[in-house]
């Protein structure tokens, strides 16, 4: 029994611990981890099949029972006393099953796997609903089409990019290996050349950006800006020429130096980043989704302003206190607000009237106790709800 818990927790020595298995370049069918995954899928499918076949009058007791056992397990972690060994390890011995604490990671991993499965379930559910609407050409079918196209485009490029990054890891490992054995090949010459261009370009871009920032702040003139841009271009040309000479020398001698290995690593990254998949993923995720995300949320500023103007009225003492407190805290969040009282000396009594002092006092002596009281009430509510779920009294669990 104890062995099985340790095996599920993957605490057993290497060989049976599947996560400790080394990744190799062998064909996938000859790798043990592949067969572990296949076995797990088969066992899980059988379990799910059996659960689906449970007669309806047994389903409620089964759900309540499993919920109680799972919930109690986490409660027991905190409430049942444990024994601390001289090594610092905590154990909670129970007859027959041994140290049940060893099974906590199993419960934790299982919960994580179930959460991950829920994400897949969500994707399947969205697909079913919207694909059905599309097929039947129901109202707003066009939006369903947009949603499905967006979802699968993101899914495709996200997964393809992830796979490419795994490929990059393999390339980087090969470069490290070549650096160890000091072997130079035509492939590494190409990659290192790309790396030298990429590194020099980044340096040039940094110099140009710095010059532009200074121009915008008025620290340098337009002529100075142009001079710095020309200098950056010269530095780029010189750096590329120097690296090229270094790479050619390494290619001629057939030896990969640590500097060339560094350039090759940078080149491999640049090669991956410039590929079609990486560019497309960046376009759909960073340049479209994230920009839309930011734009949508920035609209909140308009609604908050309009709502505050119409609804924030001093109709009672409480509302008045709330408003003045809010004004002080709002002003303390911007330097221009703090500047109103920043002239008051902070080391004298009058310094207590500085906005930052008043704001700190409000947050430390009014906000903190209030939040603690709210948290206590919240915790009691969560405890009550937890007990109801644990004992199957909550409708969602018991019906």
């Amino acid at each position, binding site marked *: 029994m104890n062995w099985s818990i340790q095996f599920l927790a*993957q605490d057993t020595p290497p060989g049976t611990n599947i*996560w*400790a298995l080394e*990744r190799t370049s062998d064909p996938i069918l000859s790798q043990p981890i592949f067969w572990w995954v296949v076995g797990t899928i088969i066992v899980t499918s059988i379990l799910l099949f059996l659960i689906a076949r449970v007669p309806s009058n047994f389903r409620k007791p089964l759900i309540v029972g499993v919920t109680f056992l799972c919930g109690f397990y986490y409660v027991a972690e905190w409430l049942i006393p444990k024994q601390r060994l001289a090594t610092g390890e905590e154990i909670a011995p129970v007859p027959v099953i041994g140290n049940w604490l060893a099974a*906590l*990671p199993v419960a*934790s*991993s299982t*919960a*994580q796997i*179930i*959460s*991950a499965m*829920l994400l897949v379930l969500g994707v399947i559910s969205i697909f079913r609903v919207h694909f059905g609407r599309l097929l039947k050409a129901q109202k707003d079918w066009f939006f369903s089409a947009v949603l499905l196209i967006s979802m699968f485009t993101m899914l495709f490029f996200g997964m393809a990019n992830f796979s490419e990054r795994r490929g990059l*890891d393999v390339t*980087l490992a090969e470069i490290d290996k070549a650096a160890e054995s000091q072997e130079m090949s035509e492939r590494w010459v190409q990659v290192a050349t790309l790396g030298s261009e990429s590194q020099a370009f980044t*340096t040039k*871009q*940094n*110099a140009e950006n*710095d010059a532009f920032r200074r121009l915008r702040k008025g620290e340098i003139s337009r002529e100075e800006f142009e001079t710095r841009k020309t200098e950056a271009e010269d530095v780029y040309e010189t750096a590329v020429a120097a690296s090229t000479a270094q790479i050619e020398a390494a290619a001629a001698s057939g030896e990969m130096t640590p500097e060339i290995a560094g350039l090759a*690593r940078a080149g491999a*990254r640049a090669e991956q980043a410039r590929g079609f998949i990486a560019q497309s993923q*960046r376009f759909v995720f*960073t340049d479209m*989704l*994230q*920009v839309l*995300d*930011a734009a949508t*949320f920035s609209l909140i*500023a*308009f609604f908050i*302003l*309009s709502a*505050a*103007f*119409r609804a*924030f*009225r*001093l109709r009672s003492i409480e509302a008045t206190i709330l*408003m003045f407190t809010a004004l002080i805290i*709002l*002003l303390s*969040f*911007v*330097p*221009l*607000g*703090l*500047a109103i009282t*920043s002239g008051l000396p902070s080391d004298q009594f009058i310094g207590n009237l500085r906005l*930052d002092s008043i704001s*700190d006092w409000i*947050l*430390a002596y009014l*906000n*903190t106790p209030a*939040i603690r009281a709210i*948290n206590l009430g919240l915790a009691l509510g969560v405890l009550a709800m937890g007990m109801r779920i644990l004992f199957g009294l909550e409708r969602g669990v018991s019906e």
Partner: protein
Amino acid sequence: MKVWQALLTLDRRILYLVLMILVGWQVVSPLQAENVVSTKTDSLFDYIDSMNEGDVVLVQSDWTNSTRGESRSQFQALMRHLMRKKVKIIVTSIDGQAIEVARVNIEEVAKEHGNNDYEQGRDYVIAGFFPDAPNYVFGVVNDIRKEFAPRGVVNTPVMANISDLSDCRAVILVTASASINIWYQRMRNKTKLGLFCTAVMSAENIPYYASGQLFGLAIGAKGAFDYETLLQDKYKEDQKMINLAAGQRYMGPLAFALMLLIVAVIFGNIAMVMVRKAGNSS
């Protein structure tokens, strides 16, 4: 009287227009004021600044571009500091989108001058997205190597000396949600906890700073600007380094948006009182 009545029934599009003009003006030509750095951000900076080359921190990034105004400048300032200190970084997230956003931002900051050409696998690792937050934190606290083993990061130089969470100098969260609550509940004092949060999350996290459970706290866009100000004080010698960035740039627009909000609330109330008074007298 007509003026107050008109103010009370002001078309919201006029307010939107004023907001757009003020923010637009400040984006183009921001007004600057001397910054008073918060003690909470100061503590955060001091502890991170006390780290040595080769130390490891776990950064959980749970923000996306919906809170870009606050979280992006916080995250970038934190990354600049860690990279300049040559601290190794493990990045995780409990938000599916956030991990990709973090990757993009780290790669952007790593290219900047003075940030030691940080390279994934050698100087930082991205352990990825974890769908079940409570059990992920439990796993990291219980056995960090086993938790991260399937992510292919445990055999990198970053995790070479990490056998337990207590080997990390800190866990730092950059978040726009209440994701830190799980760390409060489950961290068992294994290491120190720091937080960069949005302004709306500040009220509920300040008690944990007061109780010493957080070694530091940067709040909202002002927190980002505070951190940038401290970076500027420390690294002002090298003029090519980017210290004052988006955190500083956002202060002007934020200040004017907030001041418009304050003015709108005050005038809205005056108008209400005046109209009510006129109604009573008539």
